[in-house]
């Protein structure tokens, strides 16, 4: 049994005469001999599958968000409008329900605050850890593993773990504060600290990841750069600030993208920590509001429009990264 593609190609090309000039080939042959076509069996199936199940689903979700789909039954695609987005920004009672619907501002604000705080602190901490670990210290591998290990835990484990850490009576955080003469303080349901507590736990979990990315970046910088800076009399701080950190731009951007996407997925964490998709107004994020609307209230179309907003936020972060990669010819 021959490769069916080869057979097919022969069937087409055999119809023409053998070429001796090595130049003008018939159009059919040229189409089939193109690399992109010849490699189609390899890229086409995954392309179609991803196209259908990822991008197709996103597109479908966008269309769904324009309908009035609520409750059971099928969405009516004949009547599309932007009502759900108006409701998402202004609140009020849309035409498809008797109940007033909460706008997304509170959840959006929490989502952005969580995203920015989490990403910036994670990067800063990761960079610091990477620089420390990079100092040719003893047990370097051990330290690296210790810092990276929390990332291997699932959000469910981390959430339960931090619930104990924040315990008013016996939690390590309050015991530590007590050692400095503070507290104990209520953390888990404290409206002023709730979101910070969530961000802190996520930072604990993911700063190790930022460290590994930065460490790889640091190792890629030739040691001659360090030596040259030293010879020119730069202090350690100045050396890192002016010579090393500017070279970590690519590492920063790629770590940032991953971290931001993780922060958008903090749903699992909140779900486990607060026993459901109702973490309370001061820790409510778009993901929890989306699930509450879609599965709690069966407001499918409205849930979809929240999902679209969430998607656009993720895209706003990822798109510049992809564009800069494209500009540098890395795509």
């Amino acid at each position: 049994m021959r490769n069916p593609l080869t057979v097919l190609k022969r069937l087409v090309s055999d119809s023409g005469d053998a070429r001796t000039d090595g130049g003008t080939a018939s159009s059919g042959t040229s189409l089939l001999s193109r690399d992109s076509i010849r490699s189609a069996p390899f890229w086409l199936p995954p392309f179609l599958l991803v196209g259908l199940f990822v991008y197709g689903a996103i597109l479908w979700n966008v269309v769904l968000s324009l309908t009035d789909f609520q409750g059971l039954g099928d969405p009516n695609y004949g009547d599309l409008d932007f009502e759900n987005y108006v409701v998402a920004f202004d609140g009020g009672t849309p035409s498809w329900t008797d109940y007033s619907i909460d706008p997304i501002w509170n959840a959006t604000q929490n989502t952005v605050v969580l995203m920015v705080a989490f990403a910036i602190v994670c990067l800063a901490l990761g960079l610091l850890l990477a620089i420390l670990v990079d100092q040719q210290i003893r047990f370097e591998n051990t330290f690296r593993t210790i810092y990276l290990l929390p990332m291997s835990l699932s959000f469910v484990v981390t959430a339960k773990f931090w619930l104990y850490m924040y315990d008013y009576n016996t939690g390590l955080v309050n015991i530590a504060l007590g050692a400095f003469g503070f507290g104990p303080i209520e953390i888990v349901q404290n409206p002023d600290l709730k979101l910070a507590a969530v961000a802190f736990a996520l930072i604990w979990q993911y700063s190790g990841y930022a460290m590994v990315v930065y460490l790889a970046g640091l190792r890629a910088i030739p040691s001659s750069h360090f030596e040259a800076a030293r010879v020119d009399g730069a202090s350690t701080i100045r050396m890192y600030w002016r010579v090393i950190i500017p070279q970590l731009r690519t590492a920063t951007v790629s770590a940032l993208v991953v971290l931001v996407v993780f922060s958008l997925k903090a749903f699992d964490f909140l779900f486990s920590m607060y026993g459901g998709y109702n973490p309370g107004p001061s820790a409510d994020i778009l993901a929890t509001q989306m699930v509450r609307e879609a599965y709690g209230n069966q407001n499918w179309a409205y849930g979809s429009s929240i999902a679209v907003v969430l998607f656009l936020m993720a895209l706003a972060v990822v798109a510049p990264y992809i564009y800069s990669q494209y500009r540098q010819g890395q795509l």
Partner: protein
Amino acid sequence: MTDDTNRISRRTVVKTSGVAVAAGLAGCSGSDDGSDGIQLLHAWSEGDGNAAIAALIEGFQEEHPDIEFSEDPVDGAARSNLDQVISNRLQSNDPPSTFQTWPGKTLEKFGDAYADIEGDVWNDDLKNNYRSGPQEQAQLDGTYVTVPINIHRINNLFYNTAVVEEAGVDPTSWSSPSDVVDGCAQISEETDAVPFAHQTSSAWSTSQLWETVFLAMAGADGYDDFLNGEGDESTVEDALANVVELEEYFPGNSSSIGFTEANTMVQEGEAAFIHQGDWAAGAYSGNDSFNYGEDWDYVPYPGTSGSYLLNMDSFPYFDDNPTPEDTKTFLSYCGTTDAQIRFNREKGSIPPREDADVSQLNQFQQDQFDHFTNADAQPPSIEHGLGVVPQVKTNISEAFSAFIESYDAGATAGDLVGAFN
């Protein structure tokens, strides 16, 4: 030669992966079409619930050995997960035979998908023997669509007798929610124990505490007005204010613990009281050194002694039923005393049928059943989905997740009354 071998092995690889892909795709499209048995979906995948559903099915199969059963537990986060599965199946026109759901207003969620079972299942025997409260909850807009199998009571105040006696308080003499606050103050002064074991890591315990206190303050009629969206905001706020007063007596770490830990505090003598549904007592029955009447006792939550605040599970009937006759046979069985005794003996709740022979249940259940049959009112729980439609329930849950952050009675009262709009 080498080349040949390579080619064969490559072909084998292609074949094998082809078969694997085909099998994978078949797995995707495969459904439970193969089995014709009753598809009962439930979230009782462990503990007392699992024992109860197993006992129920065993009893059913003793009577109807010819009817097959493909019982399908839905693992994961209890009921919300189950509802998602049902919702997805209904969207694809593939409902199961029946599933575990709260009756009452929760039925509106899949309202159009249910069918009338009056006559076939809800015959005169059931109508004569279910009390009016549970019977009302079995109906969706006046149509019988589901069969309640058990009743958990929400308005209980459990206590550790040793702690209560040490402090010299007598809960049996209390008659209003403010007595509970005073009693907690006395516990706090006289003992080292936490007066009121309560969890606030999620909002449901506080929500059901409020509905109990509100029932005590507004009475069954005022409670009913609230369910109809005409609640008296000042009484709603008074009830919330009472909860705020109680909050002082919650464990310091209430936001980091769950129901199980709170309930354990009462068993260990670290706390005096807990307000919970009677599943709390189910946990005590597993503890040999913690006995009803000696080590622990309970009163109907002060001010609500004439009411039995209902939380029920039920099995509804889907219109587009995969096994119409068998499902009706099963639901009819669930309406019998035999089924309800088997189920509730394991579940720790009580049967909804008044004529059930409860001598096989434990003493606590018998006492509860006695309260139930003598109760003047059987109002439906809000937190447990019987009293309000899902959208309102979500609004109320949101209000309480804000309440346990700030304990702002005024703002929450506005949210609760506004939950119906």
